[in-house]
């Protein structure tokens, strides 16, 4: 299992959220884990399905294990005096059998003690090697603790299976529960295809740029001046629509090239930057592009800004790769899928906004519109810069931003309506 990247705090919050999600799912499914007044005292089995092996982990609540083996166990003793006995006991009660009835060897790793839901658990990593070399559907047989403590339950979760589109804790799939009547579960594997994983990563890319207000705002700031040409330190209407479209293509391509490069490098571990300065730089990138939208900073500045700051945005996408658990195996496919999702979303934004902007840019309201939107972008970005540099504790515009991002069609339709109305009632720009 590879370690997860990303800042600790974000990771913890996400893990907590996913824990809540899993709990909610279990409850909804009527598989209520005994939690609440008591701390959770179920066991857990987590599975990561790979191509040639299954890795995983068993989490055994120490107080329940003590009842099952009829020994006084403590945090210390499970790794000390009782270590050999417990390892043997656990190993004896886990096995795997392939579809052809051939046993698959299960190897337990070194035990450790971890507090999960406020209860100390003995945790063993394990590895299952398929008899035929490739992982196919198999039966997992398990009755640790539950062979003796008949009211105990063991929740089995598939944490990773790329070919079935399960990539991280967010989409972890509860496979079932071992209890006093269920001691064998069928683990589906080798039934999906890499396309499924690819589609899922693309979906994640779409979702994450779709929710990333800062990335979208940056793109919007670059698109606003795209139909114009800089002349003498001011924006003027481009001579032809064709030329304007060409400039949009340049901007989008430069942004895509920039963030793809750093996304690949960071995901491959070539570069590794802390996330806070990256986030702050992204906010700065929006400020710069907003200023540029008001007054051109340099000729063809938007292409330079798109490419240069695109490198920074790529670093932020890369930190998501770790958070989403895309960094286990199949990295190239994951990266391609994730990036494809990002590009598709960008093209969608361009497709939604650009016709209206092109139309508007040829009317006299455009300077006012462009300046207005750029000023809003500038205000948002300054607020982000302050928040991300920890100068302020919260962002007062978070609510508005969430609403705007949550209603993309409404925003696009409003701009389109404005463009149509302006085109009919306002004279063309000089």
């Amino acid at each position, binding site marked *: 299992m590879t370690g997860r990247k990303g800042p600790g705090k974000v990771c913890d919050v996400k893990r907590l959220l996913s824990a809540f999600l899993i709990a909610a799912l279990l409850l909804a499914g009527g598989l209520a884990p005994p939690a*609440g007044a008591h701390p959770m005292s179920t066991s857990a089995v987590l599975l990561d399905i790979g191509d040639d092996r299954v890795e995983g982990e068993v989490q055994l609540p120490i107080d329940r294990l003590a009842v099952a083996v009829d020994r006084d166990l403590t945090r210390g003793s499970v790794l000390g005096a009782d270590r050999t006995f417990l390892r043997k006991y656990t190993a004896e009660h886990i096995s795997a059998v392939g579809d052809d009835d051939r046993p698959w060897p299960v190897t337990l790793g070194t035990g450790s003690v971890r507090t999960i839901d406020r209860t100390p658990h003995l945790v063993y990593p394990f590895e299952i090697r398929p008899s035929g070399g490739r992982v196919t559907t198999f039966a997992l047989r398990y009755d640790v603790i539950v062979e003796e403590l008949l009211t105990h339950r063991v929740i089995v979760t598939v944490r990773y299976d790329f070919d079935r589109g399960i990539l991280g804790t967010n989409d972890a799939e509860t496979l079932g529960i071992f209890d006093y009547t269920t001691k064998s579960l069928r683990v589906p594997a080798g039934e999906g295809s890499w396309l499924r994983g690819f589609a899922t990563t693309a979906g994640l890319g779409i979702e994450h740029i779709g929710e990333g207000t800062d990335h979208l705002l940056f793109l919007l700031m670059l698109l606003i001046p795209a139909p114009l040409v800089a002349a003498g330190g001011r924006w003027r209407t481009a001579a032809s629509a064709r030329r304007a479209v060409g400039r949009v293509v340049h901007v989008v391509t430069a942004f895509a090239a920039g963030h793809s490069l750093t996304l690949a490098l960071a995901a491959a571990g070539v570069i590794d930057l802390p996330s806070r300065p990256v986030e702050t730089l992204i906010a700065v990138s929006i400020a710069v592009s907003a200023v540029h939208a008001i007054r051109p900073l340099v000729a063809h500045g938007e292409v330079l800004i798109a490419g240069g700051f695109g490198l920074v945005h790529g670093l932020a996408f890369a930190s998501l790769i770790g958070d989403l658990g895309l960094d286990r195996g199949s990295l190239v496919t994951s990266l391609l899928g994730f990036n494809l999702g990002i590009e598709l979303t960008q093209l969608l934004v361009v497709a939604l906004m650009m016709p209206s902007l092109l139309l508007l840019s040829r009317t006299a309201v455009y300077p006012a519109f462009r300046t207005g939107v750029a000023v809003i972008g500038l205000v948002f970005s300054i607020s982000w810069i302050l928040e991300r540099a920890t100068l302020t504790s919260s962002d007062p515009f978070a609510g508005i931003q969430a609403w705007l991002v949550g209603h993309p069609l409404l925003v696009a339709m409003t701009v389109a309506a404005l463009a149509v109305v302006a085109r009919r009632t306002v004279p063309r720009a000089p």
Partner: protein
Amino acid sequence: MSPVTSARRSRQARVRRAVVALAVCTGLGVTGCAAVASTGSSAAAAMTTRKAPPAKVASGAGGANTAKVVAAADAFLATLSDEQKDTVLHDFDDATKKTGWSNFPTPVVQRNGLKLGDLTDSQQAAALKVMEAALSKQGYEELVEIRKADDYLASLPGAGNGRVNFGSEWYYISFFGAPSRTGQFTVQYGGHHAAYNITYAGSNVSISPTLTAVEPMAFDWEEKFYAPLKDKRTATIGAVQALTETELASAEIDGSFDDLLLGPGHDGPFPERPEGVLVSDLTKKQQAKVTAMLKAWVDDLDEKAAARLLAKYVSEYGKTYIGWSGGTTLDNPQTYVRLDGPSAWIEFSNQPGAETDGVHQHTIFRDETADYGWE
């Protein structure tokens, strides 16, 4: 006025018009969205039809005071708004009947129906009248005392660590199937440490599954002393301790139990082979102790039906077993006692203290032939 300024004025006017148009567009867009959202939620709140299927009652013992319960239920329903009725009434076979009860406090398991704490005083009184009608005097007292125990827990500093809700307001009531003297319907009442599923089908009634539990075993509340479930504790420990050494040895159930085997969310399967000693093999005195144990649960139900059911369960002693695991004393947190007959099923499980020191109990009563009523 020069033609230039006139042209500029008219352009300014047009720009102004455009801005107004934009504002109107945005406004319409926002209103449209809000309208869509509200349509969605009102559609979700639409009433569903509720049917009470005719019951094939083979295993009923009769004697149910159905008319009295229906009258109390109708009186309670009459105090409710349409929206509240929609929340409290479900189809008889609604799947939430089996998932919406537990020994755990909310929100660990969300309950069905209306929360007593959300009702007016008169509505709450009417709701409790339904339970009072369904239960015997001792059964209803126990229900009230389990709620008081939760008030007591809520009063403890740091109770539940803010993660769970304690207190007598967190109990719920709901109906599955419309209350009727002839059709089948279930009254479901519950919250932390309480879950009553009482199903009526004409003259028959089933109290299966009903979970009664309490923490702590004894407490003072508002200058009074309470010990809910005392009868169940005394009778169960009495029955198991009446067994001889040899009987105890053969009555031991395989495995350990840290909670109810057929508790919330686990409606089966009932074990294929009953474990323990056969009750009909015991002496008269010992059998009387087992009957006292059975009575502690069955007698929670209204007196007449309870007497009929008890007679039926006692008549099945030739196929009824009593067994134990972990321990047979009240202070042992591992103590687990089970009665397993062709119909009756009782589990008594000691629990280590969760919010207080000392053990507390989870118990369940089921009737294997009438779990949640009849097919």
